[in-house]
């Protein structure tokens, strides 16, 4: 296949998520064009690019919301392209949405419990949630500071509170890889540092590999180990934050010089 894949053959065992030549077009417009990228276990990887660069489309291809026209999605070394979204998610891929999505009419606690990783067969579905799940939910809610609101209808909370809840819900599912679409979007500055802290600790303490789209440059440069840059659907750069900041093609893309 294409070059980057071959370059990293020696480290393949560490790669948890990989896209190989992923292409997606909508009625003649190519939203994602032959994109290769790889996320290794334990990394925090950023995905940036100007508006309309195809970042969200790429995310949707990875999660199975969209099926790529061409190319493969590889999760833990197995191809998952074309599988239903929920199956891909079950294989350890978590996701947070750009517009925060929680179950608005359920209580905070139930939002957590319904997000728990399913254990056991049909029978477990028809039982009350296990003690472990409750403990885990309690711990996570205390961690993000929502424990006091556990019996409140989630949709009643503020946007920031919902964002934290969604983050806690994502962790509740114990993902290996967590895809975050603009986690910092719409959050007030005072909460931003808290968020960075949460993401870091999820990454280190809970061993969640994180792959995030972000527009807030300060945020992404601070939190990410490595960054991919998309423009017009194509991958134009990759590397550590410092390198990306110096990259001419990236600057051109952002400043519209082409």
């Amino acid at each position, binding site marked *: 296949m294409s070059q980057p894949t071959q370059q990293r053959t020696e480290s393949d065992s560490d790669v948890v998520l990989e896209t190989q030549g992923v292409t997606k077009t909508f009625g003649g417009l190519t939203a994602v064009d032959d994109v290769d990228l790889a996320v290794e276990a334990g990394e925090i990887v950023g995905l940036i690019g100007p508006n309309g660069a195809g970042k969200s489309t790429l995310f949707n291809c990875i*999660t199975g*919301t969209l099926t790529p026209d061409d190319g493969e999605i590889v999760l833990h070394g197995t191809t998952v392209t074309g599988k*239903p*979204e*929920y*199956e891909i*998610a*079950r294989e350890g891929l*978590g*996701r947070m*949405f750009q*517009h*925060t*999505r*929680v*179950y*608005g*009419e*359920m*209580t905070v606690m*139930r*939002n957590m*419990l*319904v*997000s728990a*990783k*399913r254990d056991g067969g049909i029978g*477990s*579905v*028809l*039982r*009350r*949630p296990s003690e472990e799940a409750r403990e885990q939910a309690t711990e996570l809610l205390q961690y*993000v*500071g*929502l424990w*006091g*609101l556990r*019996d*409140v*209808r989630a*949709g*009643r*909370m*503020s*946007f*920031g*509170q*919902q*964002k*934290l809840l969604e983050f806690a*819900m994502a962790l509740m*599912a114990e993902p290996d890889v967590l895809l975050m679409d603009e986690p910092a979007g*719409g*959050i*007030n500055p*005072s*909460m931003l540092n808290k968020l960075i802290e949460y993401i870091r600790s999820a990454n280190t303490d809970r061993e969640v590999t994180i792959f995030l789209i972000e527009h807030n440059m300060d945020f992404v440069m601070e939190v990410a180990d490595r960054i991919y840059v998309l423009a017009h659907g194509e991958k134009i750069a990759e590397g550590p934050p410092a390198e990306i900041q110096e990259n001419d093609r990236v600057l051109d893309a952002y400043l519209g010089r082409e």
Partner: protein
Amino acid sequence: MSERGHYARQMFAFTDDHGWKLLAVLAFVGVVLPFVGLEEGIDMTILVELFLFAILALSWDLIGGQTGYPSFGQMAFFGVGAFTTAILVKDVGVAFPVAFAVAGLLTMLTAGVVGAATLRLRGGYFAIATLGVLLSAQQITRNLEITGGASGKILLDVPSDTVFYWTFLGLLIAEIAVVYYLQSTRFGYVLNAIRDDEGKLTAMGVNTTYYKTAAWMISALFTGLAGGSYSLFNTFVDPNVGYNLAWNVEMIAMALLGGSGTVAGPVLGAFGLHFAVVKIETWFTGWQLVVLGAVVIVTVIAFPQGIVGELRERASSMEYYKHGGQAASESPGGDDGGTDTDANGEHATDGGESL
């Protein structure tokens, strides 16, 4: 669905309690009444109808309120059940309990088939598709030989009203117990999550098809069993009785006016509205539908979240502010996020998927 409608469906900790009490009171009163003088007659007939409508409202609510799939053709299953027992008892000559069981199975099967086709549709599309199912079932039944065509089936050799009193009471208690229990399980949580944001749930690794199909089938089962008993109770069924278009709307009105997404709401809504209908028919003979129409309009406008829902929303507000509300997790002064809520947060979860 959005804004006002959703207040009706929250704070489940509150409902758990309610469902339990309702179940206990209903079971006690229902079982005791026949031993303290309830005989066959008008009171028993009205009680049977109250039970019947409570079963229907709760059935609708399981799929329409709890799962958020707005079925607008639930009476299709009632008709399938009604005609199944009518044919089995009258033409095949099987005993009522057997016919009853077959009716339940057949209705669930029908729901499975219909669900496979329609449960992929959302919001208004689903509502119309299910309405289409009801209407074509009615028309097809009208043209079939086996169902008695337009003339329907006369069923005079049937069990006594007392048998149906116990049947409907048992069905209602069973249904309340089932829904009440399911609400506390992962299954129940998933149904509510489907209602709130099915896409999110799928992204979190849940195959929603199984859950919503199962909910639809349970809902159809109780509707079908109610229909299966009703045709014999009424001693007559034709396509207008079996696929009653007025009831199709009434059961939804009952669930919504009581408070949908709860156990107590639909049951109390059914009791209240049907009792009102009975009284209106006596007091406003000839004008009863005018009054009923006005009552429905005024009630919906005055209590959009239903009666139980109204209580519920107050409880939720108290809970939120008791624990500091917005300030609970945000630094003081940082209320930018708060103002964003209604514009973004609510719409993303509530408005995104409908129509």
